[in-house]
């Protein structure tokens, strides 16, 4: 375990260095959710301030985290392919899962930048007041959302190792979560036949928890606790799937020897 944590810490450090070396990277990773959030600002122009804060401000934060977690993972993989370092990373005795976990976590945290950007625009230019009645509940829900996005990024990492068109899939997958997790609207807006997709996505529940946490007494609210529980449960399922898929992918890549294909 100690060895794995060292690998994890090294991956976190390397990803932070990557960001420091390319300071505009977080900006480019989150520019799409930022632009989508600006469109939402116009569409929500007549909504009550509380609805605006719950859906536009918090929703843009979730979109930013997701775009960053997903985009970061796929870009990391594409970069390693282009730089020719992917084979060296792959053939080290360190676990690929822990390397990917370190990367995913940093990328997801960096995505919080969109939340800060939209919150700032909303407070400074639109006069929206952001009041969080249960800061502990809010923080817990945000941390779980980051974890959920990071674990989904980890789960998809195996897939990005197999494809040479990671950016194409990244475009599709980013929008998949925007549609189904109810980031900018409640999932009740979706047709009935589409809702099952929402139910199996952990961020659907963590975002509900975040929205409930702005009300007083959220920690004692059974709805809030149920959403937190479902987020944790689904995140654990993704983690197990990620662990299993990583093994399958590594085995497949060693046989096909297609890792360096760009």
């Amino acid at each position, binding site marked *: 375990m100690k060895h794995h944590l060292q690998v994890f810490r090294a991956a976190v450090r390397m990803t932070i260095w990557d960001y420091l070396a390319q300071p*505009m990277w977080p*900006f*480019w990773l989150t*520019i*799409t959710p930022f*632009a*989508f959030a*600006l*469109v*939402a600002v*116009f*569409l*929500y*122009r*007549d*909504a009550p301030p509380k609805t605006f804060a719950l859906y536009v401000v918090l929703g843009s934060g979730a979109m930013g985290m997701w775009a960053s977690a997903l985009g970061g993972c796929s870009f990391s993989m594409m970069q390693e392919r282009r730089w020719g370092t992917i084979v060296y990373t792959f053939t080290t005795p360190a676990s690929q899962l822990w390397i990917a976990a370190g990367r995913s976590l940093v990328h997801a945290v960096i995505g919080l930048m969109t939340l800060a950007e939209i919150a700032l625009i909303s407070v400074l230019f639109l006069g929206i007041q952001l009041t969080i009645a249960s800061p502990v509940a809010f923080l817990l829900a945000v941390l779980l959302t980051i974890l959920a996005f990071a674990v989904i990024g980890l789960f998809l990492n195996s897939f990005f190792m197999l*494809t040479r*068109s990671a950016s*194409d*899939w990244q*475009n*599709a997958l980013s*929008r*998949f979560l*925007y*549609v189904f997790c109810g980031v*900018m*609207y*409640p999932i009740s*807006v*979706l047709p009935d036949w589409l809702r099952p997709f929402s139910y199996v996505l952990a961020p659907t529940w963590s975002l509900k928890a975040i929205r409930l946490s702005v009300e007083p007494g959220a920690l004692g609210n059974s709805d809030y606790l149920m959403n937190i529980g479902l987020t944790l449960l689904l995140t654990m399922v993704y983690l197990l799937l990620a662990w299993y898929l990583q093994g399958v992918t590594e085995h497949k890549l060693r046989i096909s020897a297609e890792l360096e294909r760009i």
Partner: protein
Amino acid sequence: MIRQIKLLIRMSVTVFTAIYAWQRPASYLTIKFIVPFLQMSFFVYLAKFTLGPDKLAYVAIGNAVQLVAFNTLMGVAMTMAGEKWNGTLQTLLTTPANRLMIFASRALVHVLDGIAGAVIGLLYAGLFFGVSFAQTDFLALAVVLFISSLTLTGLGLIVASLSLFTRTVEPIMNTAYLLIFLLAGINFPVEQLPVWLRPLSYLIPLTYGVEAARQAIAGASLALLSSSLLIMLGLFLAEGTLGYYIFTYFERLSKRLGTLEMT
């Protein structure tokens, strides 16, 4: 003239083969069918929640037609960056070939691809988002889509030129696309933008294209849309000329500084 057209078609076919021959169908089909459906769904459901069901058609058509930008602008903008990545840019730009022909042959593929993208988007609009085509003037709609796609190559050329001088053009390309997405009246009318932003909207050919497509779907004839189409063609000429000069300027500059292959 006929010789030039034949040459253009021959070059376009070669470029098309070079661009897509290596790509797996699954990847291309994802970009062509799945991404547009998801993006349209997101904005249509967002509009359903915020503005009510009455505005669904407005948003669905806007998002369908903007797919020409997703394909044409991005495709054209990436032409030179693609050559750079593949290590063929230096070889290409040291030939005496006509630069306009080099560019046009690469753009033609994306113009057609852009129209195909918008048609797919409009099919989704009809099948899933309740847009009715009962009154549509299909000839007018086809001309609008063609001119919308063609006119975005001017902006694409400007962005593509920058890739001769920058390490990576994707950030500039993404910003250009997202600005168009925000300003071209796709999800809400241009009149709702702050006054100081509106002049920018009117410099984007797609602003007129999206509105003309909405009118064609509602039954407007080609004659009724002619003024919008002429404005789009005027903007195309202006932006295309500007793009061409920027392209030749950066080509000279990159050759002088030896940065053509900088990645």
